[in-house]
């Protein structure tokens, strides 16, 4: 269970929002909405523990992130704005490394390959990442979803950007499946996606300072 109390976020010297509280349980999906610059990415980064809130606290299963960093990061998958791809490595190498770095040492190359095929990159497996299109790069990052079902909490920053219609539908289905299986998803997006159950919406613009 992801819980945030009294969150305030300061960026540079601007207070983006304050007094924000939320509780997310298993099976729930939250869409963070709001205009550009309102602090959506900042909120997601606060929830991952990458940044510390100016005030308030984020906790995971009742323990503050500061005190349960390792447990929390074992349960978390975060995909940020940038796909975390190195241009000199192939999608397969990138994905395999991403899993190993995250602590999933048991994910082998075979599983990575299947995930990439599953997301539609069968023909790009051995190309260096620098020749991929934006949508393909995004897919390499998203392939980690198929290897991360054991991580209950997914936090995704603009996962639908640069994807075509079919891929959007596929991703929405995957996210819905994850929630149906008891996972929790937090995401930001500007576009509508065909989720099985409409996600709850947090309109950050309403809470902005």
């Amino acid at each position, binding site marked *: 269970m992801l819980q945030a109390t009294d969150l305030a976020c300061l960026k540079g010297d601007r207070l983006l929002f304050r007094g924000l509280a939320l509780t997310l349980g298993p099976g729930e999906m939250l869409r963070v909405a709001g205009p550009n610059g309102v602090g959506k990415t900042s909120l997601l980064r606060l929830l991952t523990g*990458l940044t510390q809130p100016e005030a308030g606290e984020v906790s995971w299963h009742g323990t503050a992130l500061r005190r349960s960093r*390792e447990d929390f990061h*074992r349960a978390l998958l*975060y995909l*940020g704005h940038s*796909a*975390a791809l190195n241009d000199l490595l192939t999608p397969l190498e990138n994905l395999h490394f991403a899993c*190993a*770095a*995250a602590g999933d040492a048991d994910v082998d190359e075979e599983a990575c390959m299947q995930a990439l095929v599953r997301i539609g990159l069968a023909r790009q497996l051995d190309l260096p990442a620098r020749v991929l299109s934006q949508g393909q790069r995004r897919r390499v990052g998203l392939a980690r979803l198929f290897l991360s079902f054991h991580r209950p909490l997914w936090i995704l920053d603009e996962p639908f950007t640069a994807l075509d219609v079919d891929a959007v539908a596929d991703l929405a289905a995957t996210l819905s499946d994850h929630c149906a299986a008891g996972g929790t998803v937090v995401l930001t997006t500007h576009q509508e996606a065909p989720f099985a159950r409409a996600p709850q919406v947090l309109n950050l613009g309403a809470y902005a300072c």
Partner: protein
Amino acid sequence: MLSTFLAILRRDLLLSWRGRADLLVTLAFFVVVVCLFPFGVGAEPNQLRAIAPGVLWVAALLASLLALHRLFAQDHADGTLEQLLLSSEPAVLWVLAKIAAFWLTTGLPLVIAAPALALLFDLEQSALPVLTLSLALGTPILALLGAVGAALTLGVRGGGMLLALLVLPLYVPVLIFGAGAVDAHLGGTGAKAQLLLLGGGLAGALALAPWACASALRIAME
């Protein structure tokens, strides 16, 4: 834990191999700087022999400084660093893996090239093992301390010069004991004390620097 360490080490080594032109630049810089000195101070053999340890050490120090900004820059730019910070493995582990890969690709070539360059200065044959050993113990310390500086200046404008300003004063003890080891050997007092101190310094840096580097990276990503 070990598998994560090895995965990161392997990946960084692979990346260095694919971008090997960069590594050659570091090595070439080292060679060129060393070769500049005789033009500056004259080719008198006795004088060259006397300054050889210092020249080689200063050049090695500058060469490893030159490569430092590459240590985290790419991972910072493409978001890999963010993912590493979210790893369930301790940060010290992967920081250490990255530094190890960095040293293997930039420090180790210098250690190997140094004896050959020492011959250009007519350094005594018996001093070559001491020189190599002092560099082998000293350059990892440079990499460890430098990594802290690189993490602190990550993404800061004018970061390259700033990095040099932060790191060079910290390098002085390594330079003193490293070049001093060779001098002491040539002077007949034996290099054992300096080499032991370098070893102790390496142990201390191994214990503290990855930790400082990890917190600096965490601060840089906020």
